[in-house]
């Protein structure tokens, strides 16, 4: 059990997907202007990551031992179609949730965090439950980074910043400082 907890914690803060592995940067830059939307995107991320992790485990266990060179192609096809199916199911079962997730669900298909998760999970040889906790931790980490970023951006909206720093330059420098702060969590793992 302790093992699972450390996987969750490490994926969430120590090796944060966005701030340490640079995965899922597009939404991190694009959708982080408001806390509300950042939170929703984060929720959609956790959801899709969990499903992707289960899929990747199935592929790795039952299919890929027979055709290792198809790994990348099968991952991307399965993940993309699964997100599509999930979208249809949610639309049917819970229209409210569907409306809340909105455009973010399809957008997540092309989010590199999903494929990154599947590949990391394979490279590290995680079991089913380890993979599941890795996915949830990673999703929580993405949400955390997105919400932090959105709060800082909301707070700095009225600040008097130099005109050359407006836009992406400022976002990148804030992300750098956030990433610097998250490096402090590395001590958690070495002390364990």
């Amino acid at each position: 059990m302790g093992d699972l907890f450390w996987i969750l914690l490490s994926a969430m803060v120590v090796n944060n997907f966005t701030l340490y592995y640079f995965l899922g940067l597009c939404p991190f830059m694009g959708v982080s202007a408001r806390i509300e939307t950042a939170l929703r995107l984060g929720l959609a991320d956790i959801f899709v990551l969990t499903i992707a992790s289960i899929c990747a485990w199935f592929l790795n266990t039952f299919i890929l031992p027979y055709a290792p060179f198809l790994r990348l192609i099968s991952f991307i096809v399965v993940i993309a179609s699964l997100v599509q199916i999930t979208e249809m199911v949610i639309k049917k079962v819970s229209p409210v949730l569907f409306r809340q997730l909105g455009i973010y669900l399809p957008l997540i298909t092309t989010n590199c965090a999903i494929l990154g998760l599947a590949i990391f999970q394979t490279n590290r040889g995680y079991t089913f439950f380890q993979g599941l906790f890795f996915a949830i931790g990673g999703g929580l980490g993405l949400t955390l980074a997105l919400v932090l970023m959105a709060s800082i951006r909301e707070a700095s909206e009225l600040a008097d910043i130099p005109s050359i720093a407006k836009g992406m330059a400022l976002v990148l420098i804030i992300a750098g400082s956030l990433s610097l702060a998250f490096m402090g969590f590395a001590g958690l793992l070495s002390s364990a």
Partner: protein
Amino acid sequence: MSPRHTTPQQDLFRGIWRENPVLIQMLGLCPALAVTNTVANSLVMGIATFFVLVGSSLLVSIVKKLVPNEVRISTYILIIATFVTVADMTLEAIVPDIHKALGAFIALIVVNCMILSRQEAFASKNTIGRSLLDAFGTGFGFIIAMLMMGVVREVLGAGTIFNVKVIPGNFEPWVIFILPPGGFLTLGFWLLLLNWFQERRAERAKVREWPEGVAEGRAA
């Protein structure tokens, strides 16, 4: 939406600097930040991405009439994934050390939005020759941006280029630049610099347009 008319030279050169994928369009940021901690890694990553981009642009523009509109994105992704698999295996055979250092990020070329955006925006609408020119230009632009990141990060973070010492004396390396935060900061500062140049050029152009007396009055 009618495609803009451009000359072949524009197709080639626009991606290199004026519409540079990383520095101007902010696409393909994931590899540009993640693997640029040394010049060698950046170069290999740039060349691999260049190969995948040119290969998939060629194939997409050949099959563009055969692909139904509804499944075009999935088709592009499949084509891209095929080329990435080829690149992955080739790198593993030629430069195993760097392949190991790049790790999962080679496979992640598949979801590099720069490549998909060139297929969707250009290769699927233009002739084979022009798609190739466009892919060459954008690919070179990507390599240039990767090198700009890699050189700054390796020189400041380790004091070396290609593992050859370039800063004499007992320079204390700024380790932060080869760690993840350094990626964000380096790109942030490059953007600041580019914005500053652009603003200065705009300012000068404005001064030139003013009648003589006004410009002198402003300068004084």
